[in-house]
């Protein structure tokens, strides 16, 4: 189960994730669904996706947005739970965080709000046309 020391990683190899303009995008090539998270969620994912534990992520989020660490932890844990439910992430065996990554700019950002994970299903057939094949065995050495 999740706790403060849990670290996460994307479920490989069929999940792709990236933060662009502060927004986190996930694609699950196995299910054909894709997801987006707003600026706060994007920032949380930059940290979680670079091996920061839930607790480390919460501390940095609390500092960045000037909110109580308890509130940040509650939101980070809820987000992690959603990502797990959607089978986008799994617990990782990493023992420490990567060097702190560059976080999205806060220029123009509004006040802190709990992150939202939005799910979309309208491109499944298009993803199926040219995906890196997730279900195939590795080719034998030639």
């Amino acid at each position, binding site marked *: 189960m999740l706790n403060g020391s849990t670290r996460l990683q994307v479920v490989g190899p069929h999940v792709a994730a*990236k933060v662009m303009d502060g*927004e986190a995008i996930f*694609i699950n090539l196995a299910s054909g669904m894709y997801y987006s998270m707003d600026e706060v969620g994007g920032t949380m994912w930059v940290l979680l996706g670079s091996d920061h534990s839930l607790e480390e992520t919460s501390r940095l989020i609390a500092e960045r947005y000037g909110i109580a660490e308890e509130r940040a932890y509650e939101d980070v844990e809820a987000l992690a739970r959603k990502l797990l439910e959607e089978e986008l992430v799994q617990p990782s065996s990493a023992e420490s965080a990567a060097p702190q990554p560059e976080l999205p700019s806060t220029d123009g950002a509004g006040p802190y709000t709990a992150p939202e994970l939005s799910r979309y299903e309208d491109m499944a057939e298009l993803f199926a046309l040219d995906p*890196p*094949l997730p279900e*195939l065995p590795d*080719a034998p050495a030639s």
Partner: protein
Amino acid sequence: MARSSRISCLVPVYNGERYIAEALDSLLAQTLLPREIIVVDDGSTDGTAEIVRGYGPPVFCLHQENAAAARNRGLQEVQGDLVAYLDADDIAVPERIERQMARFEIRPELDASLAYVENFWDDDLRHEMEGLDSDNPWRKPLPGTVTQAGLARRGVLTSIPFDPEIPICHDQDWYVRATECGTVIEVLPEILVKRRMHRNSLSHSGRDAVEQDMLLWVKKALDRRRSVEP
């Protein structure tokens, strides 16, 4: 205008010497021949150009790097008002152009006729096909995109250019943008293109590059959607 003279074929290629002759032969064997077949070479370093030159008219070759830019460049050169794409490693079934042309005659409002594609595996990847369950989607026909199996109005293709920032998934990105602006597209439920899976095809190389391309395509689609939401 004669039916044939309305149709130009565009075949983008990069280092396609192994398969391009089969692709071109499949276009030259159409029951309704195109007026021209333009191969757009995206900087090949193998014998592709020589093979293409060996054909002569109605096969022509031009050069343009970047796959999306190559597709756009080809459009500047075509003379037909309808454009059929074919990837240089795929094979069009003999009735492909005739079947799709008929759709434009039945539905004058049509902007693009797409068709189904069926994967086939090159010998060096036969183990892949054998490793797939019989119900795996890769063993079933799939609706093809405009550049895989499309016959489309040139005007539609030029007014909705392929996005060079999305070099791999630009055809799926095109489909999304085209439908957003009301383009009339239908998918003919017939297999008109055989799509070759081989070790050098994009699906089999550069997983990271494909994923980065997909992520950018999705991000741009979301940004556009939000920009028109009230």
